[in-house]
């Protein structure tokens, strides 16, 4: 067997290599110096070097539209767009992590190593052109996340969260793997292009393939926290260190959605045999929106509130996925989903970042009460949080508005107006719980004594950056939307 990889192949996987290399450096230094934790700022700088190098590779190779390593990895618009998102998320999340009480003091080097490699796993999923490689990528980032959650210095709920995530995550992986085995059995290949080509035909004729496909989508739905696979999300999100919650709530969703879009591009949803399942998927979407929003409505803990809200946002994204699917080749749906990934990532990461800078202990679990009167003490943080929450609600002129606008447009274009109406009903419910913290920050006087928190300039900078992006993309959505459109153009 001739093994012949070109130089370009290595350039293409450069981002992953760079991340891995720079994540090893601080770890090696720590080991060589007798297991003494090094300056966390230096560690963070190494991480940023890795991310910058990875971004460099990504931008150099952007627009090459080719496969690498004998077709095992694919580099197209979706890949490069999601890669950039994942890298940015990683950078911002690491900035938060360095300042966090639950991650920084003893083991930031290890945390940084695991986070960076989790990002490598995410990139693998994004690039994957083969179901087995996708599976490996999902396992890589999941395992890193399990350990990261368990590493938290907070003792009460983080261990439970890690264990719960591990058990249920393994269950989802098993589902997915089981599905992949059926698919392999019927298609005779795990290679994604083969699969996509065979899907319409096999779905109509082969029941085993149908079963495999449904199992695969169930696994994906679990990772996205779509109803009825959503119940792990609030507990896990609450138990994890806040910066890490932000990282996994956004990063995992972004890459799994990219994979889902590739599956949907197979035109599976247009196969008549599959229609009952598409109907079920639509109802699950409605349930996801309702469960997420009504669940968030009832929460005291802000982290749980954001967890349920992320379930609701999964529901909105599912509207776009379905629109992309049943349209056959609907650019509108796919680009709506990609744009929503961008908007959701920015605003959710920012919101978790704000919660993180307000935490004063490793086991802080902020409630709305804790935010009372914040506007007088920390006007800038309160303003950033307001911008982010307004964007999560979907009020213009923010990125969240255009995210919803594009998704709902796609749904209406495909004749799925009723899904858009459910999305709207969800958004109206969400007004209450998203604006509740704003009420507390600006309109109520503090009832609890707030612990003084040390300055965390880098985190503040990162939060302001997300709030700024929310407004910037909200006012100038077109250039970003064009990028998204070109990125999905080749796949759909």
């Amino acid at each position, binding site marked *: 067997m001739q093994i012949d990889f070109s130089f370009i192949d290595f350039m293409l996987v450069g981002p992953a290599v760079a991340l891995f290399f720079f994540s090893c450096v601080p770890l090696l230094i720590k080991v060589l110096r007798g297991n003494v934790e090094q300056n966390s700022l230096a560690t963070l700088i190494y991480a940023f070097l890795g991310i910058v190098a990875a971004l460099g590779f990504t931008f150099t190779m952007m627009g090459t539209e080719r496969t690498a390593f004998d077709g095992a990895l694919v580099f197209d618009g979706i890949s490069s767009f999601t890669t950039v998102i994942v890298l940015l998320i990683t950078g911002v999340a690491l900035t938060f992590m360095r300042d966090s009480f639950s991650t920084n003091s003893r083991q930031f080097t290890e945390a940084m190593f695991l986070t960076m490699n989790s990002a490598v796993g995410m990139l693998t999923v994004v690039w994957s052109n083969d179901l087995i490689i996708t599976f490996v990528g999902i396992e890589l980032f999941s395992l890193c996340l399990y350990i990261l959650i368990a590493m938290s210095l907070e003792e009460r709920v983080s261990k439970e969260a890690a264990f719960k995530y591990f058990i249920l995550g393994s269950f989802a992986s098993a589902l997915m793997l089981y599905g992949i085995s059926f698919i392999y059995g019927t298609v005779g290949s795990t290679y994604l292009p083969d699969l996509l080509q065979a899907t319409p035909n096999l779905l109509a004729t082969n029941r085993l393939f149908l079963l495999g496909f449904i199992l695969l989508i169930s696994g994906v739905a679990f990772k996205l926290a779509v109803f009825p696979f959503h119940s792990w999300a609030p507990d896990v999100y609450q138990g994890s260190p806040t910066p890490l919650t932000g990282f996994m709530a956004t990063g995992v969703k972004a890459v799994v959605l990219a994979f889902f879009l590739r599956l949907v591009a197979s035109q599976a949803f247009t196969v008549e045999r599959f229609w009952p399942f598409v109907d079920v998927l639509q109802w699950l979407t409605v349930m996801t929106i309702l469960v997420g929003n009504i669940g968030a409505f009832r929460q005291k803990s802000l982290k749980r509130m954001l967890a349920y809200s992320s379930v609701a946002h999964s529901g909105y994204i599912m509207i776009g996925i379905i629109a992309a699917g049943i349209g056959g080749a609907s650019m509108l749906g796919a680009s709506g989903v990609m744009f929503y990934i961008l908007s959701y990532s920015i605003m959710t990461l920012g919101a978790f970042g704000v919660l993180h800078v307000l935490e004063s202990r490793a086991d802080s679990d902020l409630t709305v009460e804790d935010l009372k009167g914040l506007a007088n003490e920390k006007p800038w943080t309160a303003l950033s949080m307001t911008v982010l929450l*307004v964007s999560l*609600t979907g*009020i*213009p*002129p923010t990125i969240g*508005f*255009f995210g919803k*606008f594009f998704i*709902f*447009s796609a749904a*209406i*274009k495909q004749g799925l*107006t009723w899904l*858009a*109406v459910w999305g*709207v009903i969800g*958004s*109206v419910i969400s*007004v*209450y719980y998203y*604006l509740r913290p704003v*009420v507390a920050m*600006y*309109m*109520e006087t503090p009832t609890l004594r707030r612990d003084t928190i040390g300055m965390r300039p880098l985190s503040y900078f990162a939060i302001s950056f997300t709030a700024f992006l929310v407004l910037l993309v909200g006012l100038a*959505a*077109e250039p970003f*939307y*064009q990028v998204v*459109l070109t990125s999905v153009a080749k796949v759909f």
Partner: protein
Amino acid sequence: MLLSLLIFLPLFFAFVVALLPEKAIRPGALIMSLLHFALSCALFYRFDPHKVGLQLVERSPWVPTFGITYFVGIDGISFWLVMLSAFLTPIVVLGSWTAIAKNVRSFHICLFLLLTSTIGTFVAMDAVLFYVFFETSLIPMYFMVGVWGGANRLYATMKFFIYTMAGSLFMLIAIVALIFMTQDQFGQMSASILDFYKLQIPFVAGTVLNTQTLLFFAFALAFAIKVPMFPVHTWLPDAHVEAPTPGSVILAAIMLKMGTYGFMRFVIPMFPSATEYWAWLFMVLGVIGIVYGALVAMVQPDMKKLVAYSSVSHMGYVMLGLFALNIYGATGGLYQMLNHGVSTGALFLLVGMIYEKTHSRQIADYGGLARVAPIYSIAFLIVTFSSIAVPLTNGFVGEFLILLGSFQANPWLTAVAVTGVILGAVYMLWMVKRIFFGGDGKLIAEAHDDLDIGAREIFVLAPLVILIFWMGIFPNDFMNWSKASVNNLIDNRTHYVLSVEE
């Protein structure tokens, strides 16, 4: 350039206010709002009332993929609403000189942001741009009620926000549907309202589930909540009572007009068949609002709540006039929007002024105020006359035209609506009697000497009182500016076309 300047100058002013030293905020804001008003007076020279089409148009792409443009223009329908917004802001700044004690800086920032979004709403000619301004206006008002409001402000501001948002999100879906319709019919996506007018939207009489009726109700719901019409008016009394005086003034005088303006700009010309078919519903709801608002106002012990319910009643007249679908009704409706802005705005200011001195809004606490505060009493009485439509005041012109128009459309409903005129006189005059005349009430008996208003308050009220008489005696000075546009709206309602004047 002028319209964009009018929209975005207040945004710039908001940044300036953020940087001004603490002491300079109020004078600075007053000067800036006066500057803005002076600039908007340039519209009198640049706007030609004889032209039917859109004037001072500016257009540039915003999200071209969906045909969304930054498209602003002004015609006779929006002309006076823009002027009203610009005119009231300096009055509100001066009127809140002492009423707003805390967070003065943030308050004025909110005020200028509100001005940006209201003017933007009135001149936006792109549906998505309109939606953006329409929604954005909620946020400063939300803060205004929530931060500077009364005891129950948090409930009121949340209710206000959720009600308005619920309606407008369905409008967003309808806008998206219309955008795709332009793609089907003209081959190119466009969110321009002018293109929406040209759409052929299928309509089936007698059913609800047809395209035009659904779109009609999606828009109508959003605007009906904003107006507010019975039965979705319940947020209004809460918001008005809890809002600080300047908030109430802007809410009543300008933000409610966004709803009625929406009916004139979107609902009536865009969905002519559905409007014709469902006009009875809106006329009935309008009349219910008139009578119901008046009856509820009559039993209010709180003056501010009384004025708030009178708003429901007055806005009922506007809706009645608009859905009479004839020239008198429409002219009267538009005129009554301005009247309501002036007279209810003035009433809220007056209530706020006396509240500042006595800290009571209970009617029962007063009595015999006329003796202690003569100037205040005169002003209050004039505004009351305007509110109950006494001839020579602006209210008379508006209500008369509306009733004239609605009589042509539906005499029986008009007969019921006329009782509202009587009821209006009953609740207002009864309140005046109990506050200003009779024996000295609890507050007056233990009164400190200076309950009357000072020079600043006179400066605040004088322009409004002048306007009340000017608009009442020479209505043509005002109507001539909007005549051509309103005529065009009514005459060509079934095939409405609005073109851009070069």
